[in-house]
Each structure stands twice: as structure tokens, then as C-alpha cells.
């Protein structure tokens, strides 16, 4: 195999230093407005860095098992959900004990969730990434996603403009209630805190094992058939 010599790459050290300085200056400017803004700023940058370096992709987590049989990203997403479950449970339960209103987005769940998920799923496969993946690749310089992000913003704004109408006429009619929240489900209200917390972790564990098993089976059957082919050739 003839190896083509790689083109000389641009040295990005200078750009990196400039970016670091800009991030720092922006952080200082934000801190003048509100200390929380700096925290958001740092978390945003850290998230972006991890997303880009890990190639973490919610689209791939659901698409790759069908395309390649690989569930490594799927399992990564399940682990992320499990960690988030522990974190949110801690935050919400401590608020619950103190008698404060429960923080977090407790949104109506129902048929519209299924419809929205389907539409989002189709959209993200065509656009080549979910919301965070698209944002990350905009920064990477993949220009097709510059178009995707423009229409992502347009769609979001349009959705926000009509959201009141949708809430009144569709969402509130088709959503289920947990008995305490009107038109919304917070699992601890139905299953109790322990049931909701451990139930969710258990479900995630089952999904993790199922994903592992799916890949193992797919991988091993193809290995077996390859071994058979090899023995026939010999």
C-alpha cells in the first residue's frame, strides 16, 4: 500500500492561546454582571470540549446499533442517564425534605411526547446530529451543519412563538397526570421516592445489559460465520 505523505498541517497553537485569552476575558466580563454567568460559561465550554473529544452523539446511540451492531455509544448514553438520575434525585430529594418546590423541568408527558420524539429523531438523522452534536460540529467547521443550525434556530423560535396555542389545544388534552401535578408526571408522586429512584436505575441497568447482549450476539454470530467461511476456503 502506497502511503501518501500527509499535507503539512497548520499550527493551531497561536489560535488556541488567543481563544483561551478570549474565554478568560469573557469570563471576567460575565462575572461583572453575575457570578452565576461565569459558572454557566465554564460549564458550557467544558461540555463542548467533552462532546467534541469523546464524539458523544445521541443520534449515534440509537442509530449505530441498527447500522453496525455497535452499542458502545448507546451504553455511554445509558451510563450518562444513570449518573444524571443520581444527581437529580439528590437535588430534588433534598428540596423535597426541606419542603421547597421541586426543582427541574417537570413537563407534561403524553402522546405529544411520542410525536415530538419521532419528529426530532427523523430530523436529527437527516441533519447529521442532535442539538448538542450540531452545535459541536458548527464549531468544528462542518459547513452542512451551519445550515442545519440556522433552521434549528428558526424552528425553535417558531415553536416558541406558537407554544402557548399548542399547550392549550394539544398538550394539555393528551397528557397524563400523576395526581399532584396537573398535566405532568413526576415519578416519585406515583412510585414513591425510593421506587422511582431505584426503579429508574434498575431499568437503565437492564437496558445496559440488553445493549451489551445485543452487541455480543451480533459480533459473535458474525465471527462464527466468518470462521465457517475461513474453514471452507481452507
Amino acid at each position, binding site marked *: *500500500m502506497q*502511503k*501518501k505523505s*500527509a*499535507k503539512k*498541517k*497548520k499550527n*493551531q497553537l497561536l489560535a488556541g492561546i488567543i481563544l483561551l485569552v478570549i474565554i478568560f476575558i469573557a469570563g471576567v466580563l460575565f462575572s461583572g454582571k453575575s457570578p452565576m454567568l461565569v459558572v454557566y460559561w465554564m460549564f458550557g465550554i467544558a461540555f463542548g470540549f467533552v462532546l*467534541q473529544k469523546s*464524539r458523544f*452523539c445521541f*443520534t*449515534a446511540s440509537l*442509530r*449505530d446499533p441498527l*447500522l*453496525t*451492531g*455497535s452499542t*458502545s455509544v448507546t451504553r455511554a448514553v445509558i451510563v450518562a442517564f444513570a449518573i444524571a438520575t443520581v444527581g437529580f434525585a439528590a437535588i430534588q430529594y433534598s428540596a423535597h425534605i426541606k419542603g421547597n418546590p421541586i426543582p427541574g423541568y417537570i413537563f407534561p408527558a403524553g402522546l405529544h411526547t411520542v410525536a415530538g420524539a419521532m419528529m426530532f429523531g427523523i430530523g436529527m*438523522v437527516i*441533519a*447529521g*446530529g442532535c442539538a448538542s*452534536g450540531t452545535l459541536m*460540529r458548527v464549531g*468544528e*467547521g*462542518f*459547513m*452542512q*451543519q451551519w445550515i442545519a443550525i440556522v433552521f434549528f434556530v428558526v424552528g425553535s423560535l417558531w415553536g416558541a412563538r406558537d407554544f402557548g396555542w399548542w399547550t392549550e389545544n394539544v398538550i394539555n388534552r393528551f397528557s397524563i397526570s400523576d395526581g399532584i401535578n396537573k398535566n405532568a408526571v413526576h415519578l416519585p408522586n406515583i412510585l414513591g421516592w425510593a421506587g422511582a429512584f431505584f426503579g429508574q436505575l434498575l431499568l437503565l441497568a437492564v437496558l445496559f445489559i440488553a445493549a451489551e447482549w445485543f452487541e455480543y450476539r451480533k*459480533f459473535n454470530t*458474525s*465471527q462464527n460465520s*466468518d470462521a465457517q*467461511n*475461513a474453514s471452507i476456503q481452507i
Partner: protein
Amino acid sequence: MAEYRLDCLGEACPIPLLKTQKKMAEMKVGDIIIVEIDHSCAMKNVPEWARKEGYNVEIEEVDDGQWEIIIEKNK
């Protein structure tokens, strides 16, 4: 032993993977395919798929954000 180039520049994930799978299916044993990509997601799933199939895979970053995945259909 032939060498093929597959131009997937500007193609979003998962198109490079699908094109590679299609091309690999019609290649003979010993053939080599060079997949040109610039979508970072394909950098992950194309090599992963090929390695899982048991092919020899090499990745080379030819330019900033542009890669060549060299796959040998060794069986």
C-alpha cells in the same frame, strides 16, 4: 488487488458508513479502499464497524478536520 477511493467529503454521518459498507460488499478480497471524510462522527463509526468486521484499518489525518480511512478487505 485494486485500490478504490471513496469521496465522502461534505457527507454527514451516517452516509460515509453506508457508502463504505456498500462499496466493501462489492470489493474482492485483497482490495483496498480509501474513504475520504471530513465529518468527525464518521471518524468513529466507520473504523469501528470495519474493525468489528475484522478488516485492517488505518486512519490518517491528511488535513485539519479531514481524514482518510484506509481499509483492507483482508478476508
